[in-house]
């Protein structure tokens, strides 16, 4: 009995090994070569308002308008648009001949339905004072309560992707993703999505016909997928992987500035942090350059102000840089009555300068930065205990006021105009992913003026005012500028990386061989 079983097992094993050897055979024709693209996030959800980013990145779904990698609005599903003289009514003409992947034409009605649907859910739509959305003679009409410069950026946001009505079940739950982009889904599982070029796509037919997305949570996996030649494009590499791939030289590395900034959120209402001098002391304690070079091998990543050079209109080269000065930090804290205790941690009466820092558990770079911060704060007598957490815990702690410090990377170009994000984050009392307990009516007014549209010179002055306020008041402490690092197969031509994380630009790439 047992003997027979073992023999059968061996046979199966041999078959398995045989199958393994023909696993990847080189020398396919470029036409039917499958393009493999790898990043960390899971395509588990179908809900467009939360998972729209993925479907936009893959070129599966489109938004009404688009945004290029410098943040300029371009055409999307809408080929033309016009604004009424009072700035309150916007009319959009859809691209003629656009079809959803189920063959139904993209008309104004499904677009209106999707925009209304997005409005009902939490999300960026709420920064625009929309009064009504309607379909009229084949056009999409959006009426605003007050003029807004943010409408187009919001319509370019990936939570407003347009899907065919058949994507939803009777309860309005998204059950599949039927978009109108250059690629349509042919297979979707927990971690992989296979697509092929959509033959009724109106634009230039993509040179890459078949592609697959693979979600790989670990940077090492992603790097090895690239190194082994299995993956053609790999995004979100960490520093050790990037360095390794650069040294190996088999692949082409693209490393561009990203609009994300890793920052420290502080509870300005906290008795230790309410005084500006305390926040300045914390900022002075951080050795950004050491972190940027020691942990990421790139001195340019030291955040000298909240918004990186990526934001050409916003980044102010003349602004006094955030810098390190331990002695000054200690002086500032001494002014506030803090004195070092026996173990070097500052004491004020029976208070001890010890704070909890919430840090996102899933990001691989965060533990490194928090470990460095812990040590650097200790130099000025501030004790930090790091608590790994989920995003939800940061939001919850913000709400119930128990948050002391939190660290995360904020994408200020989440919407194509940073005003949208800044308005949310630095509204009165702050917001989940921005300030906390901090209020600056002048800055809020400046943001609102910018949001409703301002003349270029006035806008520039307002932007400078906002940036200076943020740098002076430190409602959050900028730490590190993030970068978007990707590795590409050297056989690829016309490789472009979109810093805004809006598109993988797959439709524009082609095989060089």
């Amino acid at each position, binding site marked *: 009995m047992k003997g027979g079983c073992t023999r059968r097992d061996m046979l199966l094993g041999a078959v398995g090994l045989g199958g393994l050897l023909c696993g990847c055979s080189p020398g396919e024709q470029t036409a039917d070569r499958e393009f493999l693209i790898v990043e960390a996030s899971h395509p588990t959800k179908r809900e467009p308002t939360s998972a729209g980013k993925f479907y936009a990145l893959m070129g599966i779904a489109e938004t009404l308008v688009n945004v290029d990698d410098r943040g300029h609005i371009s055409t999307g599903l809408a080929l033309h648009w016009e604004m009424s003289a009072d700035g309150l009514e916007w009319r959009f003409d859809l691209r003629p001949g656009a079809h959803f992947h189920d063959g139904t034409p993209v008309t104004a009605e499904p677009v209106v339905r999707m925009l209304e649907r997005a409005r009902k859910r939490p999300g960026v739509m709420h920064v625009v004072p929309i009064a009504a959305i309607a379909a009229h003679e084949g056009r999409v009409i959006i009426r605003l309560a007050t003029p807004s410069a943010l409408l187009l950026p919001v319509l370019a946001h990936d939570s407003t992707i347009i899907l065919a009505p058949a994507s939803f079940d009777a309860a309005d739950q998204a059950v599949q993703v039927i978009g109108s982009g250059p690629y349509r889904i042919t297979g979707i599982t927990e971690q992989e999505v296979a697509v092929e070029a959509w033959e009724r796509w109106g634009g230039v037919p993509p040179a890459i016909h078949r592609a697959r997305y693979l979600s790989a949570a670990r940077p090492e996996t992603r790097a090895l997928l690239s190194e082994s030649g299995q993956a053609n494009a790999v995004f979100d590499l960490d520093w050790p992987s990037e360095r390794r791939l650069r040294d190996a030289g088999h692949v082409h590395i693209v490393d561009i500035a990203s609009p994300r900034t890793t920052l420290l959120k502080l509870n300005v209402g906290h008795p230790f942090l309410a005084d500006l001098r305390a926040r300045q002391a914390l900022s002075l304690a951080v050795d950004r350059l050491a972190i940027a070079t020691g*942990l990421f091998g790139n001195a340019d990543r030291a955040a000298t102000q909240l918004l990186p050079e990526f934001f050409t209109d916003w980044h102010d080269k003349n602004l006094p840089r955030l810098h390190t000065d331990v002695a000054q930090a200690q002086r500032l804290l001494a002014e506030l009555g803090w004195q070092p205790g026996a173990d070097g941690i500052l004491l004020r009466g029976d208070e001890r300068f010890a704070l909890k820092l919430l840090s996102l558990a899933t990001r691989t770079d965060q533990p490194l930065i928090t470990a460095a911060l812990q040590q650097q704060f200790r130099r000025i007598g501030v004790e930090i205990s790091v608590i790994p957490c989920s995003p939800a815990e940061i939001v919850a702690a913000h709400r119930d006021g128990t948050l002391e410090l939190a660290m995360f990377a904020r994408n200020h170009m989440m919407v194509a105009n940073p005003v949208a994000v800044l308005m949310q984050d630095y509204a009165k009392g702050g917001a989940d992913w921005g300030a906390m307990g901090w209020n600056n009516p002048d800055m809020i007014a400046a943001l609102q003026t910018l949001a409703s549209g301002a003349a270029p010179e006035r806008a520039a002055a307002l932007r400078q005012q906002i940036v200076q306020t943020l740098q002076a008041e430190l409602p959050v402490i900028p730490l590190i500028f993030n970068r978007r690092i990707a590795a590409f197969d050297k056989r690829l031509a016309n490789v472009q990386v979109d810093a805004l994380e809006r598109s993988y630009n797959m439709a524009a790439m082609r095989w060089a061989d």
Partner: protein
Amino acid sequence: MMGGWPRRIAAALLIAIAAFALAGPVLIGLDPAQQDLGRTLMPPGGGDLLGTDNLGRSLLARLAQAAQISFLLALLSVSSAAIAGVSTGLAAAWWGGWMERILVAIADMMLAIPGLLLVFLLIAFAPGEVWLIYAAISLTLWIEYFRVVRATARPILAGSEVQAARLLGFGATYIIRRHVLPEVAPLLLTLMAYGAATTVLAVASLGYINVGIHPPTAELGQMMSEYFPYYRAAPWLIAAPITLLATGLLCLALLASRDKPQ
């Protein structure tokens, strides 16, 4: 099985590891948390005996602290699991009947819960706490001891040796001390050695999937997952904790591989 000398070397190495864990942190005299971001990923030799890690900390100092914390916690977690498992296993084998049936049912029930889920749930109460992770792991470990002890003790308690001891007037304590424990002990030692390694590796695995201990605590498993991304830039970083654990394990396995008396 093996001659005398491998066992002697194993014992000597184990003593050395224990000494490293106990006295290392004091002898080395370096702060394992002291960073120097200007000197990260320095290779062994040079200023630091084992080089520096990704934050420019002394690997030697961290390894010593990690050995101390990991071995202590692994020992605590494994021995608390063993104490729980051995006492319930003995109770089941000794009394039998409904007592045994209830204990077996509880153990089976616990086995049916995915241990991983239990660990996830417990850790969610206080993420990143070292002791909690070990406690959660030991909660999943005790069943193995229960099953082994019950299975080993039952035939012994039913055997003529114990019958003879009872006839001679010996009580429960004596029978367990002289008859049951000597038979169970070698098995337990092996189980505990592997259990300790399993615990350290479980911490490493949890760290890898981002639910483990948060830095800067130096812990062997946590070091493995923390240093893993540098496997090619600085292979000595991940090699150090793995080598320490493997050596300890091999020595314990050598010591425990004593043959049964015929």
